[in-house]
């Protein structure tokens, strides 16, 4: 009788344990993995610290560059125009760029960084609306479109990221997001122009994109496998 030194089971005349792979009669080794799957990833010394250093350096470069550009633009406007006028647009854009870089600055607080980056486009639109002359348009036009675009892109990215197998399904998520954003743009523009929500061209876009998207998902998840239609569509 030969007993595995890790599992403790009788492995008969086997050269190594068929369960854990430990050679028969070998000294105990570090666990290679459980029955359930591969062993938990081990922390590799130094790798985490190097990545953090790179992130911090990138954040520093972005912040310094944005700050330098902002100072240059503002000083130029002050010197040549006697006050801040056109430079406000540039400063707003630079602010948005810096916000977009927040995920780099807040690598440890990913959600805060992502939230800051998400705020950047609406914030830029708001700034342009406030700086520019004429009837305000941010609340009725800029905000809904920006939020819809971010929401659509975010959900599509999330769905893709969570997919175990990526292929046609990624296109399907993208098309669905585009259909959603089209609907919001159409609704926002019609509300801005007529005071009511009337969907026009976006309905055609929806009718064109959603069936394609559904077919792509179907093809990805179903046709690529061997399952029969009876199984797939049993109710």
């Amino acid at each position, binding site marked *: 009788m030969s007993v595995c030194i890790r*599992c403790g*089971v009788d*492995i008969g005349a086997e050269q190594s344990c068929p369960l854990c792979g430990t050679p028969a009669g070998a000294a105990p080794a570090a666990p290679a993995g459980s029955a359930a799957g591969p062993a938990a990833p081990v922390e590799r010394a130094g790798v985490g610290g190097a990545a953090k250093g790179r992130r911090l350096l990138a954040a520093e470069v972005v912040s310094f560059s944005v700050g330098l550009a902002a100072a240059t633009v503002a000083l130029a406007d002050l010197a040549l125009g006697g006050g801040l006028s056109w430079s406000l647009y540039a400063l707003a854009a630079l602010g948005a760029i810096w916000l977009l870089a927040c995920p780099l600055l807040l690598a440890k607080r990913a959600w805060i960084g992502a939230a800051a980056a998400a705020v950047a486009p609406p914030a830029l639109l708001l700034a342009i609306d406030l700086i520019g002359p004429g009837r305000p348009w941010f609340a009725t036009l800029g905000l809904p479109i920006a939020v819809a675009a971010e929401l659509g892109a975010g959900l599509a990215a999330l769905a893709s990221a969570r997919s175990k197998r990526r292929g046609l399904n990624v296109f399907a998520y993208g098309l669905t997001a585009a259909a959603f954003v089209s609907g919001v743009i159409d609704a926002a523009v019609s509300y801005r122009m007529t005071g009511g929500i009337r969907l026009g061209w976006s309905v055609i876009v929806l009718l064109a994109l959603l069936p394609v998207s559904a077919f792509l998902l179907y093809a990805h998840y179903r046709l690529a496998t061997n399952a*029969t239609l009876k*199984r797939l569509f049993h109710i």
Partner: protein
Amino acid sequence: MHSGDDRNRRHARTDRRDERGAWYRLDNAAIIMPAVTDRRGSSLFRLWAELDSPVVLSALRRALVEASARFPFFNVELRRGFFWYYLEPRDEPPRVYDDLGPPCMAWDIRRRGTPMYRVRARGSTVACEMSHVIADGFGGAEFFKALLSAYARAVAGMDERPADADYDAEGRPAGPARDARRPDDPELYEDAYHRYYRPGIPKPDRLPLVYHSASRLIKPDRYRVLSGELDLAAVRAAAKARGASVTEFLAGVYLESLLRLREAEAAGGAPVRPLVSLEIPVNLRKHFPSRSCRNFSLFLLPTVDARLGPWTLEELIERIRLYMAMENRPRSFLRHLSRNAGGGRRLAVRLVPLFIKNVFARIFFYSLGEGLITSFISNLGPLEPGAEAGRIVRRVGFVGAPSALIKTHASVVSYGGALTISFGSLARSRELERLFFSRLAELGLRARISRYDGG
């Protein structure tokens, strides 16, 4: 035109056939499980047996082939349909795995190709971890008993048969056992909920959300199992002295421990709900005859309100005993059974795409399931693996599937003269287990404690 019984029989059949062979529908209790399964809530429960000598691997492999041939409807994998999940027989025969990792974890049943159960071995311990998608504790125990029995026979016959004659070069079963998946008796895998469905039964009353332990969770992919072995006769005597069954007695002690835990958390300033409820699963086969090894259980839910003042153990046991006497009846279960089975029969529900069903499944799992349950104590009863296996099995254990909301729960099984209570827990705190076993010790029932987390 079908009569009601014909319709019930048709709905109860889980097996289907098409050009690629057999496949199975999920039973009524299982349909919600894939949607709520995640990294922590693996849906696997575990039965294990400690043998009198180290596991002989070749014998266990042979026993697994034999048991699998008797229960071919368990050797399946989960697949997604457009409207429902379904179970597809696996091309690969079942394997024996090592038992070095944490119990019931790191086994994603939703991943393609993953078997719905696994048999593990370590030292002199054989364990079977099975997903609730294919069976409840009864079905799992039937399989496990068949496995142990086959193993005992294989060990006894080892000297007469070449040890690995039934295996190919890669250690996979060869010969007829490889194709032994033809179901013989559909009742073994029937959806008995549908068999006993009755239309026109009122829905069960709505229940309130209850207290859940505030303890922080342990790391993902970990699951703590802490077992206490007690003398069965002593537990029976203690229960009898209080006019209760063993389940009622243990449930009373457990409910008292939960109340103490809640009291301690409330004293610490944590916001806690006032109601404490204890789920007691009931094997419906006792009320509605069926040989099904799929899920066929419902639960009773004795609940106490902590705002009504301190409860003594005697009061709790009496409350549970009276509650069980009233509710542990076919009529009571018919309400739950008919609601659950009836919902799945509606065409409007059946035609909802699976991804939408999954969203609602998670909501219902909380609002009609775990949100109403502080913890559970599941008594499997005696596990008798037969005379042959009885000679080599020293002790057995049983622990329920992990749950991130309930966190800690208890499972009970008896074998020989011993009763084993196993706590499965995802909580960092072990206070509940301590309260329970120390209370039993106060009552003169000292448990022999052992723990297992795969470390």
